[in-house]
């Protein structure tokens, strides 16, 4: 008989077709984690009874969308047999379908707005700290130790009819324990959890609850890539899988397909320097060396210019009309496009100089971590108005919508709400001058994005929920290539031919602040170093600000010098456009 999935290697196949009860898959960087998980889901989907689905939990909304895309190719009718979602998305749907109290969702930005109104004495910084502490307590599943802070925070949200993201899980657990568990597990007999190393204790409790009621759990991830401890995630949960789920099997994917030889070696050395027992267990598939360049820049500004200059070289000349072969060079230069390149930094403060340099060059770039769709100017106002239409009043609406025209508009919409679908209701709202006037700052693409979501929403409430969980997206954004500027954290799960990691000074990577965990910082750099498919540039600035004299990150000393091309300041004009690798003799 032919193998069910000829596109999988032996270890991937073993993991995808494991027939036992619970399974933990250790999947190092570039070993085909998502690929294997998609096949695992497809395998499980073939073993469902009528009316059942596989629940596939991803770390982000984008990852869920990507998973759905892969499943579509594997299983044409996957929508009937798989629910791919984040923990929050799954819980939200479960709560909405139940008979509980109605509620609205408060992302941190919304919670800040609510607190600002209800607790006027609190400054902006304190408010944000309060939100961070409260949500952390809940993520850690330690609500009992939350004290007055948590009481104030939760009390404010609840009194206004809001739940935050963690509450979605807390309320789901309560609802399941209150009797809905068996039905849930009957509907979702298989549970697959991606990025299991970054699961938090609250989510862990939910997974265990489902497993105790009979759900079969597949978890996949890489303990060396756990980077969300600061948000309550606990890599120990990954390591205790076989104890948490008795009888569980543990399998490893070992062939590393993404990363070229030098970068596997260098990143492995980084991990082993922290704890030799954690040395990644990888088999090299690629034979090419790849490039690892370490560049010392004189200053942050020079570092940013270096990055832009290299990007221009890699793309093969962007700013000039006339080129000649001498300028472009005859090596690999010119083989990259903007979408092939990402620049990563540890803290957002490092972004400004980069943005300045990119802006000057005219090279298109994007930054991630923009405001959520629901907080964009204009869009937010529309949503507050639609909340009223949905019968969900708020303080903000009372303050904002005192105008007669807006009032009348909202009343008119409320009257027709039952009779119209969401797209028609949205169009109606957008056609009202009073409502339209509120939305002055909204861009055409934002409105288009809302329209697309409205098409998919069965009810006004589900539309508002969906927008509350979404980031802005623009189909053109996705079509047009740009150099990606993002934090090391945001690079998780992504890959690019070329990666720059800037700001590798001691004190910045690892970041030394109160509560920072050196080993988590090490894993964070490991995650970043294993993103490139071809080449990695690590840069650091010898001077920052007026005085400070910086040293390169101590993490870099773990990397064998023979793997590294060292580059000091810019070469002289007319010099040879190649760096000489410094092999230590």
């Amino acid at each position, binding site marked *: 008989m032919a193998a069910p999935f000829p596109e999988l290697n032996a270890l991937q196949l073993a993991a995808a077709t494991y027939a036992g009860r619970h399974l933990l898959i250790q999947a190092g960087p570039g070993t085909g984690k998502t690929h294997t998980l998609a096949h695992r889901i497809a395998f499980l989907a073939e073993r469902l009874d009528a009316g059942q689905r596989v629940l596939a939990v991803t770390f982000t909304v984008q990852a869920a969308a990507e998973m759905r895309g892969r499943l579509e190719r594997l299983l044409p009718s996957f929508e009937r047999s798989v629910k791919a979602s984040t923990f929050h998305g799954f819980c939200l749907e479960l709560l909405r379908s139940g008979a509980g109290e109605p509620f609205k969702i408060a992302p941190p930005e919304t919670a800040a707005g609510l607190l600002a109104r209800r607790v006027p004495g609190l400054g902006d910084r304190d408010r944000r700290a309060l939100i961070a502490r409260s949500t952390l307590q809940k993520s850690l599943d330690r609500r009992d130790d939350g004290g007055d802070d948590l009481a104030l925070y939760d009390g404010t949200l609840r009194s206004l009819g809001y739940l935050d993201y963690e509450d979605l899980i807390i309320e789901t657990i309560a609802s399941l324990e209150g009797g809905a568990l068996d039905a849930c597990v009957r509907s979702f007999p298989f549970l697959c959890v991606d990025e299991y190393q970054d699961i938090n204790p609250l989510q862990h409790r939910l997974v265990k609850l489902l497993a105790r009621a009979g759900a079969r759990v597949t978890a996949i991830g890489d303990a060396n890539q756990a980077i969300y401890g600061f948000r309550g995630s606990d890599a120990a949960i990954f390591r205790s899988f076989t104890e948490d789920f008795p009888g569980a099997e543990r399998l490893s994917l070992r062939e590393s397909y993404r990363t070229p030889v030098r970068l596997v070696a260098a990143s492995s050395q980084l991990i082993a320097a922290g704890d030799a027992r954690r040395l990644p267990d990888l088999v090299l598939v690629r034979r090419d060396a790849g490039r690892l360049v370490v560049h010392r820049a004189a200053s942050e500004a020079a570092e940013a210019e270096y990055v832009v200059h290299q990007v221009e070289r890699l*793309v*093969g*000349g*962007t*700013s*000039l*009309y*006339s*080129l*000649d*072969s*001498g*300028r*472009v060079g*005859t090596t690999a230069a*010119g*083989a*990259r*496009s*903007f*979408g*092939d390149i990402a620049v990563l930094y540890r803290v957002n403060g490092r972004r400004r100089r980069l943005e300045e340099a*990119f*802006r*000057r*060059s*005219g*090279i*298109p*770039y994007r930054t991630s971590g923009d405001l959520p769709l629901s907080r964009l100017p204009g869009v937010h106002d529309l949503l507050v108005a639609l909340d009223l239409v949905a019968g969900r009043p708020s303080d903000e609406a009372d303050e904002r919508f005192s105008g007669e025209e807006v009032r009348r508009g909202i009343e008119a919409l409320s009257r027709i709400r039952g009779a119209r679908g969401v797209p028609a209701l949205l169009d109606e709202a957008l056609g009202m001058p009073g409502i339209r006037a509120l939305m002055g700052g909204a*861009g*055409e*693409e934002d409105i288009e994005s809302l329209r697309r979501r409205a098409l998919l929403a069965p009810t006004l409430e589900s539309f508002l929920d969906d927008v509350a969980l979404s980031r802005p997206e*623009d189909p*053109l*954004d996705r*079509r*047009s*290539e*740009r150099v990606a500027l993002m934090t090391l954290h945001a690079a998780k799960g992504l890959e690019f031919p070329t990666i720059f990691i800037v700001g590798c000074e001691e004190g910045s990577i690892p970041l030394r602040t109160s509560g920072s965990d050196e080993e988590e910082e090490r894993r964070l750099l490991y995650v970043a170093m294993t993103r490139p498919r071809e080449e990695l540039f690590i840069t650091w600035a010898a001077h920052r600000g007026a005085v400070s004299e910086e040293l390169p990150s101590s993490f870099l000393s773990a990397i064998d010098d023979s793997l590294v091309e060292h580059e000091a300041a810019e070469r002289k004009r007319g010099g040879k456009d190649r760096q000489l690798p410094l092999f230590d003799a």
Partner: protein
Amino acid sequence: MRFSADVHLHSRYSRATSKDLDLERLFLGAKLKGIQVVGTGDAMHPRWLDEIEEKLEPAESGLYSLKPEYRRIIEGQVPASCAAPVRFLLSVEISNIYKRRERVRKVHNCVFLPDFAAARRLQARLERIGNIASDGRPILGLDSRDLLELVLDSSPQSYLIPAHIWTPWFSALGSKSGFDSIEECYGDLSGQIFALETGLSSDPPMNWRLSRLDPYALVSNSDAHSPRNLGREATLYDTELSFDAIRRALADPLDPGLAGTIEFFPEEGKYHFDGHRLCKARLSPEETARRKGLCPVCGAAVTIGVLSRVEELADRPAGERGGRARPFTRLVPLAEIAASSLGLSGSETKSVGGICRALVESLGSELSVLIESSLDDIARVAGERIAEGIGRVRAGEVEIAPGYDGEYGVVRLFPEAESAESRGQLALF
């Protein structure tokens, strides 16, 4: 009416352009060169578009004229011989750099817009996906096909013309990062492409060698980065003076409005031959083929120029006419003719400038001097030698060391004199 148009050029907001490039001096340049419809260039740049909106006013449909208060600033420098009106047309060149089918593509596209509303609409879309404020010719990571879609969305009259389609590094058919056909580049929307810019390094007969280019109108523009280069190539129309009439002349193969083009000798263009600039290796297509594409100096692959690339894609022998063939005139810029006639190596000298000014002031715009003025009249103003030079250009009796790998070709009008001079120099030493 008959008029000439040069609509692909740049403002001072583009990289590596002359700081002089404002609307007044574009107006002046167009007058002196004999261009009636001049592109604004760089119309997506926020500050330049603001300036355009401030200084221009609507004239004929879709065309704009310099407001009287700005015209007054510059009019004193316009000789009475250059009285023809000058109109502006909203235009911009965009550099699209993107990956398609695992190859990096770099294509320059010229976009033409019928009014400010269309320009502002397109600007609003583009500023979300790239940086339009740092370079008058913005760099976008957008597929050419997707740019075309946005252009068509901006107004039903807006249109896009692939720029200098043969240059190796930045064009739709270029050897380094282009495609093998216009259809491949613009995909399902390629039916909306109706004209191609041939660029300095190719001329209509070279383009006629590809039957797949038969459906397209062939246009020429200067791609000037300074007022001096304005009108060095141009497109001639014989139709109503309006945006629509120009568009129709290009879009409709049956419309008689497209009258022809003014061309460089293609050998003078920077990418006519193959080679390596730094190695000073200039190769004809035959030599390149003989050397299997490798440089005789450094041994690496040479930059394949326009002539080789045309040869590669051609399906007709040289000498046959293409589908929408129009008359064309090959010219050499007046300053270069003057310099070459006087045995000067540079064309930016005072004496050359003086001769050009005298000719334009007494006989008319540069294009009319080069094409229409009698050689007797020219001789009377500028001397026999220059009249002889212009006569040789008109007769095509020009010797050119072809351009390659970014190096312009070198024109010699009096090779016999130059060799005599160099013999003389040798004798001196």
